[in-house]
């Protein structure tokens, strides 16, 4: 045991291997249906697609952060036996541009290299070994350009421009919001705290690196299998970039081997599509190495954040002034949306009457900043929640009471001017932490730290929006079918990258249609078979798709019961009920098997679809249309409160995370196991963000391009985590649920920083809190003559 605390009690062991005869219910911990194929190694991820006569495709990366491309030398590689083709931008007949909002990223560089990971040439070869040789033999002539590698230098006058054609220069997007008056408010504040926080560039480090497989079919259809969060959007992007009709492209998205935002958008897709167009109908595989994933994949934005927070003597928050600088790298990807969500969350879940928020997403020649679980909120929460502790210290107030005093409640306006009309359970979360022994008994625990050890406890309050915001429709289209064989097919439009929504879909359909697991088949996202339902992101998957699926299942259920009533010659379908494999007439006990019933129904009758659009905020806070287009503001939020206990080694600077408590308001829970998985996994990622994860970059070059130098938590780096839900019913959610995918990622960094400050009296404004940074801070404190 890590300490003397007891492990959580194990639940009773189910002896049954596959609970196929179970009819799902809502609210129970059902084993995930996807776990069986995954645990036996039989699940086929995008990385597992091979096939007869398959070709390998790979990319020549620029390796230089900023340069004009003069020419690509393909001849030497083309002459190598086993090389099928070496393609450049000249082989692309479409726009050669990708991007979700601003289409600024080339598939293959044509004019300019903007970061080291840019793709210069695409090589097709018979095998991996030849491919590696051919990539080495491919070279390019560059005219190097001065680069910009920090947001400060990028914003200087006369800074080299990453995109000469962008009207904003190196500012991809500036977002700002003013409510009340920060200037005059300062005079009315009794206490002011001020600080600047820096958070690092972070890699997703999903276990399955970017991978895919493609083939040009005989009928001219381009089939692309990819590890992606966004198959429907990918199809449009690939079509535009390569100059194809979208109908010609079929995107298939198997279970992804982790994604966390890093597969929210095109990675291998356009490259594979291009390769398949030049492969004479042979299948083509691309699978980025770990190093390539580090160099070319997107990252969590590095951020520098200036905060000034003012309060009254009684602790009520009065004003907040923030300036956020996010390094978005060379391409928009989702950088504008990230800075907008960061801005919306920069004041945390508090009532603050006067705010001035400004945020800049800044182009640089560093790796691409993009979507990563937390999506800008992880950064600003790190800042705001440390500000709250600094304020509490200055006010000599309990940090938990300070948060409770200012916490938003249902009906309040949050600090960006949105009235909270949905369930708002922050107070309940904070109160649960306040009651917990890990909090109430912390003083005794701290006093028992051994020699050269210091112990501390830290808390944070959290909020996280779900969905796309007011302009881009947050829509899902569910489809469910009674097959001719009498089984149920659920057509899932949203990718399952590990979060468990596919299994949840089965749970919902099985519960409504009263069919056991064996009678239900899931069809995973496929642009030819399933309906567009948006991205697997934004804590929206089960909220948005689940609502649509409930509607589709209810429609199908009614249709089945009505047709069964007709066949049984009874007047009222209320007298019939679905049971596994059949419909039963309850008064007489007569039954009609579903496979027989299905023969009386044609295909369109056996299929039901339902669209659902997530609610949006109806208020129009004082921001420009551009910011609204980027997703501001939201109406639906999940809430949480975290508590962490740490032990700091004064000799080594190592921060040992001893215990973790998470209390969340994510609405009602459909499957407690899946809920806990999301909370525990997010906290582990957050602990890595707090203590060890930092992609180090020098002049645009990644220095930490492997898992030996970019350190993600292993099993012994993560403590026992207690995850309590406060199950407040959210009327707009499926069975009262709200999103749970992201919120817990945002907690550990500020919670641990607050706990370290509590333990040692030092605050470290630059994360991660590595042993060397902690040690330096402890020494500085000693040399300042601090109490020791």
């Amino acid at each position, binding site marked *: 045991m890590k300490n003397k605390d007891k492990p959580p009690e194990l639940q009773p062991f189910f002896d049954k291997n596959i609970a196929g005869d179970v009819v799902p219910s809502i609210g129970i911990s059902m084993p995930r249906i996807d776990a069986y194929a995954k645990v036996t190694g039989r699940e086929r991820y995008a990385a597992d697609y091979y096939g007869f006569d398959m070709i390998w495709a790979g990319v020549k990366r620029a390796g230089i952060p900023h340069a004009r491309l003069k020419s690509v030398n393909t001849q030497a590689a083309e002459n190598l036996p086993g090389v099928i083709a070496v393609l450049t931008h000249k082989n692309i007949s479409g726009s050669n541009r990708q991007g979700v909002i601003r289409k600024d990223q080339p598939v293959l560089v044509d004019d300019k290299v903007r970061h080291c990971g840019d793709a210069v040439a695409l090589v097709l070869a018979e095998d991996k070994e030849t491919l590696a040789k051919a990539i080495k033999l491919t070279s390019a002539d560059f005219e190097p350009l001065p680069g910009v590698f920090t947001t400060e230098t990028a914003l200087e006058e006369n800074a080299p421009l990453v995109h000469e054609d962008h009207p904003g220069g190196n500012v991809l997007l500036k977002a700002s919001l003013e409510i009340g008056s920060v200037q005059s408010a300062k005079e009315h504040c009794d206490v002011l705290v001020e600080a600047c926080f820096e958070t690092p560039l972070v890699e997703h480090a999903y276990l399955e690196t970017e991978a895919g497989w493609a083939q040009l079919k005989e009928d001219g259809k381009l089939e692309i299998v990819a590890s992606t969060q966004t198959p429907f959007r990918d199809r449009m992007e690939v079509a535009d970039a390569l100059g194809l009709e979208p109908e010609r492209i079929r995107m298939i998205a198997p279970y992804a081997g982790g994604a966390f935002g890093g597969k929210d958008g095109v990675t291998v897709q356009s490259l594979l599509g291009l390769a398949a167009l030049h492969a004479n109908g042979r299948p083509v595989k691309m699978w980025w190495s*770990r190093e390539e994933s580090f160099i070319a994949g997107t990252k969590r934005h590095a951020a520098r954040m200036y905060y000034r927070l003012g309060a009254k003597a009684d602790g009520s928050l009065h004003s907040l002034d923030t300036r956020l600088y996010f390094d978005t790298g060379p391409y928009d990807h989702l950088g504008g949306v990230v800075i907008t969500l960061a801005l919306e969350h920069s004041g945390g879940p508090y009532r603050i009457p006067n705010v001035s928020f400004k945020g800049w997403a800044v182009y640089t020649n560093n790796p691409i900043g993009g979507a990563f679980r937390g999506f800008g909120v992880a950064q600003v929460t790190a800042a705001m929640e440390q500000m709250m502790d600094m304020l509490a210290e200055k006010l000599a107030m309990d940090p938990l009471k300070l948060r409770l005093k200012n916490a938003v409640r249902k009906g309040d306006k949050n600090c960006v001017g949105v009235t909270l009309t949905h369930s708002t359970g922050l107070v309940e979360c904070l109160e649960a932490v306040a009651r917990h022994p890990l909090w109430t008994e912390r003083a005794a625990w701290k006093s028992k730290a051994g020699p050269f050890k210091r112990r501390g406890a830290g808390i944070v309050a959290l909020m996280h929006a779900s969905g796309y915001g007011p302009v881009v429709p947050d829509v899902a289209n569910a489809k469910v079918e009674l097959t001719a064989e009498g089984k149920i097919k659920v057509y899932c439009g949203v990718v399952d990258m590990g979060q468990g929504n596919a299994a949840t879909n089965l749970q919902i359909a099985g519960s409504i249609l009263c069919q056991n697991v064996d009678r239900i088949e899931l069809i995973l996202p496929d642009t030819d078979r399933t309906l567009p339902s948006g991205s697997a992101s934004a804590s929206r998957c089960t909220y948005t798709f689940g609502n649509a699926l409930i509607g589709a299942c209810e429609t199908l259920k009614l249709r089945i019961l009505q047709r069964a009533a007709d066949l049984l010659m009874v007047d009222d379908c209320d007298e019939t009920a679905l049971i596994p494999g059949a419909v039963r007439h309850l008064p007489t006990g007569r039954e009609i098997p579903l496979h027989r019933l299905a023969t009386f129904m044609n295909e369109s009758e056996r299929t039901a679809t339902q669209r659902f659009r997530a609610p949006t905020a109806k208020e129009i806070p004082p921001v420009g249309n551009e910011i609204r287009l980027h997703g501001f503001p939201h109406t639906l939020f999940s809430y949480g409160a975290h508590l962490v206990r740490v032990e700091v080694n004064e000799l080594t600077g190592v921060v040992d995370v001893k215990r973790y408590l998470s209390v969340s308001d994510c609405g009602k829970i459909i499957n407690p196991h899946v809920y806990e998985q999301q909370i525990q996994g997010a906290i582990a990622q957050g602990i890595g963000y707090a203590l060890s994860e930092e992609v180090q970059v020098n002049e645009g070059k990644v220095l930490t391009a492997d898992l030996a130098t970019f350190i993600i938590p292993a*099993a012994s780096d993560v403590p026992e985590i207690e995850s309590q839900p406060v199950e407040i019913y959210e009327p707009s959610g499926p069975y009262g649920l709200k999103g749970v995918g992201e919120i817990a990622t945002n907690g550990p960094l500020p919670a641990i920083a607050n706990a370290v400050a509590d333990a040692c009296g030092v605050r470290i404004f630059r994360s991660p809190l590595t042993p060397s940074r902690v040690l330096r801070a402890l020494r500085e404190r000693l040399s300042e003559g601090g109490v020791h």
Partner: protein
Amino acid sequence: MKIRFVLNGETTELDVPGDRRVVDVLREDVGLTGAKESCGSGDCGACTILVDGESRLSCLMLAAQLQGRRITTIEGLGSEAQLHPIQSAFTQYGAVQCGFCIPGMVLATADLLKRNPSPSREQIRRGLGGNLCRCTGYQKIVDAVQAAASRSADHEKPLRDDK
């Protein structure tokens, strides 16, 4: 070179370059994609296989090293119809999310439980230290390993590490 070894209980003979990585032999030549490649440098454990019952990284092994060995991949441990107790515990205790680390994690667990049939939670965490998971936060994996261990102890039968 010709290589003869036992793969998931069956004698197998392959003619492959001796310096070909075992993970490539398994995935590309034999078609067993259960061993995942994630880092290619021995940092993550996703490609774990059992060699004579002990966990090894197939991305760091060359084909010639297979000669005369008993190899168990995840495909040889159990099937969906007949899960190995460790696999069963992983499904029942919610240890699986994206699942890409899971084949390696399950095989590393088989090795761990053979060496230590009733490990403490801390011993499990240390014992699986070479297998990274980015989804679960490990807690439910530790739950599952503990359950598999106690189940195996209850039934007083050793866990099969291969056929």
